[in-house]
């Protein structure tokens, strides 16, 4: 460790309140140490909650292993899916996870372009979250196949059959969209990490850590020329990811919008899926950021300002989603088509799942309205609870869209019901376990906040002129 560690440890970790993005008395060194310190914290000093949290998550991971093994042994029949409801939890979870995965890139890219100063201390964190969420999402399209071992047939590769994927199918669009999104998110995340790897390299106590971080840093030395190209590339990435993030959930929504099924076949899906994605994404960032900042005492870096801003975004996107629901229902009535109309009658009260619809309205629309009140936004526990509720609500939204629409479509004779089995639940919980495990490992092993960008913040805070300049 460098001698500087002592001098900076004096900085108090107090939340500076809703107008500041960083606590008082921070300099370049102190932010470096506070964030880097987490990584080099002795193993046993790791916050207890982290151990317990990881333990629980890991149990769920094993549950997933069991569920998947049984799935491969027996077939998708172990799930509750039937004809007509041929898509169940797998697709619901897929859409849910992808949606959660949207916050990261949005924060890093769009807020970067919008020059939002409050993005800085949460972007790294939410990018990682994006990666892990997309990883969880990515599992489902493969798991839900009747013959998962043939999943590679969805890729365009030369083969002895002279056969290729069918690019008119939204599922192939998904393949391209999701893989692109995963790749780009990773690149984005890694690029952001390079300078911090350099910091870790130079901060590392032992030579192994030096070698590891040194390799990852690729010899980054903070040259002005490098910074110049680096910032250009980073800006371009942001510029490209912005339409990408919008496109990805639009494409996911095409899975439904392109189909003819009443309740799926809607032009409003792309915008309202994207809004919903951001909605759930921010909810998940809050769900994770609030405990982590507490455990690691990072209140001075992830301040009330961050939390309030995210709460506001949630409120805003939540309203867009509400508008989406309203339009859907209105169009169903206004279209005059009996199938379309019935789909909503079924969704709201006729069908077996009417209650899921109303719970979803409660979670996604009613409860978040509390965020209008500044007092609620200022209360960390309240925001945390609302974020949780929204996560549930967004999952239910996908359930209502996927399952309820399928239960009753055109020909009444083939209407049916869907009852999730224990294996549906295990797989779902399992992926939550995977997600959390990865998250816990990340916040322990890598700088969870972008250090070099924090230094910029310090710099701007120091000179208000620059803070609002550029």
């Amino acid at each position, binding site marked *: 460790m460098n001698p500087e560690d002592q001098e900076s440890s004096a900085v108090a970790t107090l939340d500076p309140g809703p107008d500041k993005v960083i606590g008082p008395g921070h300099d370049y060194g102190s932010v470096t140490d506070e964030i880097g310190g987490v990584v080099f914290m002795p193993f046993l000093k790791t916050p207890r909650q982290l151990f317990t949290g990881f333990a629980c998550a890991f149990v769920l991971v094993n549950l997933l292993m069991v569920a998947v093994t049984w799935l491969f042994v027996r077939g998708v029949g172990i799930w509750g899916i039937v004809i007509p409801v041929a898509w169940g939890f797998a697709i619901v979870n897929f859409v849910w996870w992808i949606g959660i995965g949207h916050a990261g890139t949005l924060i890093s890219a769009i807020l970067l372009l919008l020059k939002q100063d409050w993005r800085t201390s949460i972007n790294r964190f939410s990018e990682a979250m994006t990666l892990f969420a997309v990883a969880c999402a990515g599992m489902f399209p493969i798991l839900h196949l009747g013959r998962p071992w043939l999943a590679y047939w969805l890729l365009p590769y030369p083969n002895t059959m002279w056969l290729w994927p069918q690019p008119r199918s939204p599922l192939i669009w998904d393949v391209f969209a999701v893989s692109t999104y995963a790749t780009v998110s990773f690149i984005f995340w890694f690029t952001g990490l390079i300078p911090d790897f350099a910091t870790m390299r*130079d901060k590392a106590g032992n030579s192994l850590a030096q070698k590891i971080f040194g390799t990852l840093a690729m010899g980054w030395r903070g040259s002005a020329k490098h910074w110049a190209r680096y910032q250009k590339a980073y800006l371009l990435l942001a510029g490209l990811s912005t339409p990408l993030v919008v496109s990805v959930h639009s494409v996911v929504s095409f899975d439904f919008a392109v189909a003819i099924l009443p309740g799926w076949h809607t032009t409003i899906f792309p915008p309202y899926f994207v809004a919903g994605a951001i909605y759930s994404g921010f909810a998940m960032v809050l769900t994770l950021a609030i405990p982590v900042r507490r455990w690691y005492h990072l209140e001075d870096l992830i301040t009330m300002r961050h939390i309030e801003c995210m709460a506001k975004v949630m409120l805003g996107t939540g309203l867009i989603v509400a508008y989406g629901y309203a339009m859907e229902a209105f169009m169903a009535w206004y279209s005059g088509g009996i199938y379309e109309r019935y789909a909503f009658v079924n969704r709201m009260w006729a069908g077996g799942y009417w209650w899921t619809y109303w719970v979803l309205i409660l979670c996604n629309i009613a409860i978040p309205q509390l965020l209008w009140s500044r007092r609620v936004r200022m209360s960390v526990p309240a925001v945390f609870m609302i974020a949780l509720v929204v996560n549930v609500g967004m999952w239910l939204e996908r359930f209502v869209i996927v399952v309820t629409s399928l239960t009753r479509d055109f020909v009444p004779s083939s209407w049916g019901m869907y009852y999730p089995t224990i294996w549906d639940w295990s797989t779902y919980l399992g992926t939550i376990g995977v997600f959390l495990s990865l998250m816990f490992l990340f916040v322990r092993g890598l700088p969870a906040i972008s250090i070099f960008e924090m230094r910029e913040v310090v710099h701007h805070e120091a000179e208000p002129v620059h803070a609002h300049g550029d």
Partner: protein
Amino acid sequence: MAQIFPRSSNSLAKITIVAVLLAGGGILWAAYALNAGSFTTGVEVARDQNVPFSHKHHVSDDGIDCRYCHTSVETSSFAGLPPTETCMSCHSQIWTNAAMLEPVRESFRSGKSLEWTRVHDLPDFVYFNHSIHVNKGIGCSTCHGRVDQMPLTFKVNTLYMQWCVGCHRNPEKYVRPRDQVFNPAYETPAPNQDEIGPKLVAQYKIQSLTDCVTCHR
């Protein structure tokens, strides 16, 4: 601060990158080679048989017509495999005590069938019909090769879908006059295939069938 990495590590780093790229390409190539090789395709791999039957001997030397043994090739999806009876119709007179023919005689005595290893074997979800192909002027040797020159029989084509489709898309490249279908030594006479092909296709009303259900049901 001391250097963490030696001077050489710069070049090492760049070499590693190149190496990884090359390795990736190499693996792809290897996979392709393995898939296209006869280990996978079985092409040109003579199968062991309980009776080392030689088409070369029976077709070239004895001049037996394909249909003498493969009786149903013109009428049925299945070309037909000769019953022991057929073998014995000759071998009750000639080579009556050749050791290699003992399994044949044994089968004829005991009434227990001879067992042959399939050389040309399609997956069970592929439905191939010999009769329509020979009736439309596709010769035996087009798919089975110069069987008349095989001491032990082997595949000359992969029988992969892309190979089938290749002909189904351009039958004119392979069709021959009906009277030549069973001539293993058939060579396209002048005028060359490009000229007679289209004519025969028209004459035999050959369609280019590439629908899935042509072969898969």
